[in-house]
């Protein structure tokens, strides 16, 4: 056993070409581990929060609301309500006597003043334990105010983040499946699992518009109650962040007969094949022709923009630690497009299927791990000599401390990284960090042997 690695964690770590090669995943985090993983509430919140005209009311003590206030870079083309933080801020008294009165009062303060189309009530750990009948409050408010009030029962202890994704999908299904307005002639697509970070959903929707494919709704980036309600009228669901949205795609397939296809818009190759796949599934030669010409044109443009950076990136080693397996897979391919090698891949919520694909893509010796902690990331990044880490906010200072470059690929980034333009931005970001002049000041890395630079 290596230093810093819990025995219970060994099954969650694989090195390609050694041992069984399988990665045990989806397990509860080990008690006492410094896990990077978030909770059920977090999963539900990040998926639903980009619905821009909804009231997102966190029913619990203040922390859960504070930590999730305005944390995503999800952009809106209209309402900004989702960027406000609403909570019941439960106090000791509520824990003793129950939080229902306060919740009911909070809902009425919202409903009487604002009449929003929909209120999501997130029930946190505490509510799960004190046993508030949140459902009853929802039903009462719906009949009293004529708005939708949806209980997202998301106590943190009920599993990890992926369980929260599932709950969010169920909440969305609840919103769209009551008296769905399904037009006789279905048209267009929904984009699932795009949170419009830095306007990414707008870019992707732009491609489809050019192909002549209308986008009915995005889930959930830049969505509104009305746009979600229109979604059952689409012909196809295109699922991007598969980890968070496959459950919804399946439900919509069962409920409305809408088939779905998984698609990734990270990297040129994935973006091209995503667009062509959708064109094929929609079965129109004209759409396919337009997709091809768009893909050719934009790929060429992106390749030209990326070319100057390639010599400085070739042969560099990348470590990936992201939320979902699907994104990790895309990133491995993307690094390959840049001539870089991936030496470590980890996810918070990857499935065994994801890990199989990851294993098939990476070179021998690559470390693959589920639900990693900082000690593991450190040990393996060092061992593998990673030059850059792609991860989220908690990993950034860790990478920097190790003298490793960093690229933020999490939900608070401000730069679009998907699609053709995204590939260019991604390359710039990687280059900016890997080849930053700041590394010259770091003794022991840029200056060989750790000597003081003259």
């Amino acid at each position: 056993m290596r230093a810093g690695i819990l025995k219970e964690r060994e099954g969650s770590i694989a090195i390609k070409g050694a041992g069984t090669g399988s990665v045990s995943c989806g397990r509860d985090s080990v008690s006492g581990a410094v896990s990077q993983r978030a909770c059920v509430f977090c999963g539900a919140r990040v998926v639903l929060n980009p619905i821009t005209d909804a009231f997102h009311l966190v029913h619990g003590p203040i922390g859960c609301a504070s930590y999730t206030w305005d944390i995503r870079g999800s952009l809106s083309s209209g309402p900004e309500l989702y960027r406000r933080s609403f909570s019941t801020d439960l106090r000791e008294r509520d824990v003793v006597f129950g939080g229902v009165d306060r919740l009911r009062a909070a809902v009425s303060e919202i409903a009487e003043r604002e009449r929003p189309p929909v209120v999501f009530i997130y029930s946190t750990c505490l509510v799960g334990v004190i046993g508030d009948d949140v459902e009853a409050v929802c039903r009462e408010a719906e009949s009293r105010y004529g708005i939708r009030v949806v209980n997202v029962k998301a106590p943190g202890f009920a599993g990890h983040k992926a369980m929260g994704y599932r709950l969010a999908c169920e909440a969305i299904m609840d919103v769209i499946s009551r008296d769905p307005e399904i037009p006789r002639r279905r048209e267009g697509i929904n984009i699932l699992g795009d949170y419009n970070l830095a306007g990414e959903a707008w870019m992707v929707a732009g491609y489809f518009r050019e192909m002549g494919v209308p986008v009915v709704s995005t889930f959930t980036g830049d969505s509104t109650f009305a746009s979600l309600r229109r979604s059952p009228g689409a012909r196809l669901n295109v699922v991007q962040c598969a980890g968070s949205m496959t459950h919804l795609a399946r439900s919509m397939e069962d409920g409305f007969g809408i088939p779905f296809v998984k698609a990734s818009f990270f990297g040129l190759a994935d973006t091209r094949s995503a667009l062509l796949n959708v064109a094929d599934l929609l079965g129109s030669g004209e759409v396919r022709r337009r997709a091809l010409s768009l893909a050719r044109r934009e790929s060429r443009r992106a390749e030209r923009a990326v070319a100057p950076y390639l010599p400085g990136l070739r042969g560099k080693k990348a470590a990936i630690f992201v939320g979902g397996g699907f994104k990790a897979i895309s990133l491995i391919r993307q690094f390959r497009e840049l001539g870089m090698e991936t030496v470590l891949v980890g996810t918070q919520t990857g499935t065994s299927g994801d890990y199989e694909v990851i294993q098939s893509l990476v070179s021998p010796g690559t470390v693959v791990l589920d639900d990693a902690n900082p000690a593991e990331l450190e040990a393996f990044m060092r061992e593998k000599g990673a030059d850059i880490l792609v991860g989220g906010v908690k990993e950034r200072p860790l990478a920097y401390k190790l003298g490793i470059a960093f690229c933020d690929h999490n939900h608070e980034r401000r730069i679009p990284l998907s699609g053709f333009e995204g590939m260019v931005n991604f390359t710039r970001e990687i280059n900016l960090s890997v080849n930053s002049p700041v590394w010259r000041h770091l003794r022991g890395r840029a200056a060989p042997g750790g000597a003081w630079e003259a």
Partner: protein
Amino acid sequence: MLDLTPREICERKALRINPLKTCQPVGALYAALGVRRCMPHSHGSQGCVSYHRTFLTRHFKEPAVASSSSFTEGASVFGGGANLRASVKNIFDVYDPDVIAVHTTCLSETIGDDLNSYILEMEIPEGKLVVHCNTPSYVGSHVTGFASMVAGFVRYLADAGSPADGRVAVFPGFLNPGDLREYKRLLGLAGLPFIMLPDQTGVMDGPMTGSYEMFPEGGTTVDEIRALGGAREALAMGEFASTEPALALKGKCGVEARVMPLPIGVRATDGFVAALSGISGRPVPRELEEERGRLVDLMLDANPYYYGKRCSVFGDPDTVLGITSLALELGMVPVHVVTGTPGEAFERKARALLEPFGALEGARVKAAGDLFDLHQWIKNDGTDLLIGTSYGKQIAKAEDLPFVRAGFPVLDRYGHSYRPIIGYRGGLALATDIADAIMDRIDRDCADEDLEVVM
């Protein structure tokens, strides 16, 4: 458009909008990071600690390490004792800290986990320590959680039998490493040996070395915490963050404490410096007299720009009181003084600051408030300047107000955690920032022909 706050002040009894506080555990976690080779441990769901670490990382731009009991459904029904035992074993086995500092959460408190007996009954390896504090998220705020964790260390570890070695105990308050370094400098200038608890310098302002240490060389040592029991006196800085540990130290070891405001601004720093001089029996060093003189000199030079400006101060209670005090000394009029942390004492103290300056009338002072309150007040009363945490930026943008960032958290700017706001030097920095903000605005708004190079 980010402005969704209506002008008309609405009565709210249940709804919290745009909070100005967060929950106790994150404060406890930050406090525990100020003890050498200590693993902060959250006894609750795994999401809590993930949020807290992220939150601290966003402010300090540093890794913030902490572990979790990772409650599952079963633990929340049958109690978290087994999770805690497994955690403690795993943490000592793998991460090998000297101390584990456990704090509770809303979940473990509500199901009634008894940490005292869990810790008493568990096997702890020779030479290792486990301490705890109770931080239910539905009580107080991150500031009270911080106070509880510091008090927890004192209760578990301070040793009444420690020899009286003449050191002063310093509870610095909920501040940045930059402030803690400034305390140390002031104490050094005063020639006073001291023990500071907690001390996040070296941990949350770690230098770039090319290596990552889970437990960097920083923080108060266990031996130092034990020796607090023999301290000649305790200086508890900031009533909200430091009263509880001061009482704990007095209760356990009989060490007398002075609870003082954070040394922000001239008067409060004078009080701190005078206390140091009183304890040491030596006059205030010349160097400090000169620093004070430089701060007063700046205040005088820039006086026309400060004078009569209305400002809105928001954030954590001790910090807000300190900044309010400085603002008054600068000749400004704090019209809004608000904290999210509950506690009537805040309102009383804020009024007591405003009163002698004749600034009480028309001022709005509130504890347990939120940024929605503040925004509504600003819409009704107007203000010239916002001083507070990053969460004020939406108001600043919506109302087009100059904005000085200070306090916790600052999530959208760099370098703040290195820079003190306490002491005369801190006052100099803050007063400079305030003048910059006001004068940048004058430059921005003036007609071309009025633009002055010399101001």
